[in-house]
């Protein structure tokens, strides 16, 4: 679930409000958007993908992170390279190549079935 809108990174573009498929955020006039309905978050990471400044962190948990969790600690998350991680993989952002160019799902089916066939014969 969404745990963080970084006040130091957020530029108030409200892209997260706009794109969230489950309407989790609220716009705040003159301020950063807020996580208004965390319980509606479906942990789909789409807001992270669309945030232009890597200001959001969605924890991998299906429930809110416990009090004091490292998933809520911006400094720790930033130091561990966790902010903007999804955008790096999908290659979104200035100067990046789309990650889909390295997608090998098409070959995967063939490779995997060959491998598994071998293993179980």
């Amino acid at each position, binding site marked *: 679930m969404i745990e963080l809108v970084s006040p130091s990174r957020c530029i108030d573009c409200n892209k997260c409000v706009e794109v969230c498929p489950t309407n989790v955020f609220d716009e705040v006039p003159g301020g950063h958007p807020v996580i208004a309905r965390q319980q509606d978050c479906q942990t789909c990471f789409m807001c992270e993908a669309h945030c232009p400044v890597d200001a959001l962190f969605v924890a991998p948990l299906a429930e809110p992170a416990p009090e004091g969790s490292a998933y809520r600690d911006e400094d720790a998350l930033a130091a561990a390279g966790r902010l903007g991680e999804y955008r790096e993989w999908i290659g979104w952002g200035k100067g990046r190549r789309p990650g889909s160019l390295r997608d090998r799902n*098409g070959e995967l089916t063939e490779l995997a079935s060959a491998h598994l066939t071998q293993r179980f014969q």
Partner: protein
Amino acid sequence: MSRRRATALGGVGTGGGSDALDADVLVLGGGPAGTWAALAAATTGARVVLADKGFVGTSGAAAAGGNNLWYVPDEGDRRERAVRAREERGAHLTDRTWLRRLVAETWDRVGDLEAWGYPYPTDAAGRLRRSSLQGPEYMRLMRRQVLRAGVTVLDQSPAQRLVQDADGVVVGATGVHRQRGNAPWTVRAGAVVLATGGCAFLSGALGCNPDTGDGHLMAAELGAELSGMEFSSVYGMAPAFGAQTKGRMYQFATYYDGDRNPVDAAGFSGREVVARTLAAGSPVYARLDLAPPALREALRWSQPNFFLPYDKAGIDVFTDLFEVRLVLEGTVRGTGGLAVVGDGCETTVPGLYAAGDVASRELVTGAVSGGGSHNGAWAISSGTWAGTAAASFARRRGPAPRATTVPDEGRAGTGGSSSGRGTTVPREVVRDVQAEVIPLERNLFRTEHGLRGSLARLDAPWADAVPDLDASAEPAKAREAAAMVAHARWMYRAALARPESRVIHRRDDHPDLDERLTHRIRVGGLDEVWTRPEVPVREEERAS
């Protein structure tokens, strides 16, 4: 409001008043099926409005998940062999004509994606690999194409009810703008395409929470028939701490019991052993140790969204054991939905078309799950067919008449009346439905006794709680709750009407397939739910 949103809203005012728009074709739902439908309709010159509960570009299971398409070149007998394989796997509830046109249409439309600039990879031989679509990239592109085609997009605007004319033809819909104080909107249209997705009962399955069966309810209120609703018991494997249900990587999994001993359940085939173990209340752990080391880097780039939650949790799926659970994906990965009765994905209600997961996919999946390429191809093709047919219908019929009726908003069983005077909190109804459809021992491992018990516990809230839903604060959530009760009742009535086990529909009291039941089952009704067998699948197909 950002500039981009203003563009998407087109001519819609941003005040708190009621929006009223006119269109030739109204598309409800903006995932793959809805965007393909909108594009197909706009290509014919139709004026198109596309309304989505969420945001066109992130909404729908595909945006978060991605699609591997059923994608077979027209070489020799490859397509025909693929069709026959599908018939076999779907236990002969498919329709050969639909399978043939699906494989052909999907191939052609994927060519459109290439032309529009989807960044496809090339393989070692330098050939473009076009069968896989990564969700964020795919749906960002579809949004761009829809806007370029002049479609008016209403984001964050869930539809609530369909509008009929005096002839019973669907001529529009009403809804609310949920980010503008639930201000109402009305779109009058020559025809409507439903592309609102399946129903995963707010289980949290990846990208599936917007899929609450809203379209099924709206259509059923006008008497639409459904089909294949017994094929609704699909669960996705997910980490115990999360709900990320991408399944493909588990073909490399070994599963372990609570003592960390391997259980006899490797790869995909082990899914039932895992499910039975979990249903018995014992933990199951997984590790993707069958993935060849040389392939692991490629796996990451192929499905970064699979690895993301584990990376964040500090788990290396190839070397660490992690606890798993099964998360309901209902009729998203399962395949029941509105019956389609014509080549243009017509429903049984005139003027109403169904595309993507809101439609029954039985014609092309039979009794098998729609995950793993069926549904992705179906969304593209059915969207294209429905959008084209709806535009043609609207053109033939001319301007929509001014006199129209919205189904009685206060009538029993529809939930979320506009007066919003009810006292039942939507979340309570959702919790009651989830208690019947989410447990493995109720939905995956079905018995007549269990189904009847669940139905009794679902019929009661339909009669009592649903008409009393409080829609004053969040009308869309009241409708979602009502839609899920209706959905569960169709699922379990249909499951009772199929006393056999057939691929994804399992009856523990009837563990074998019964040849006499090689036919599709229609279901419908709200206050009174009915089922009946559809006309038998063609003899020639059964014989082959």
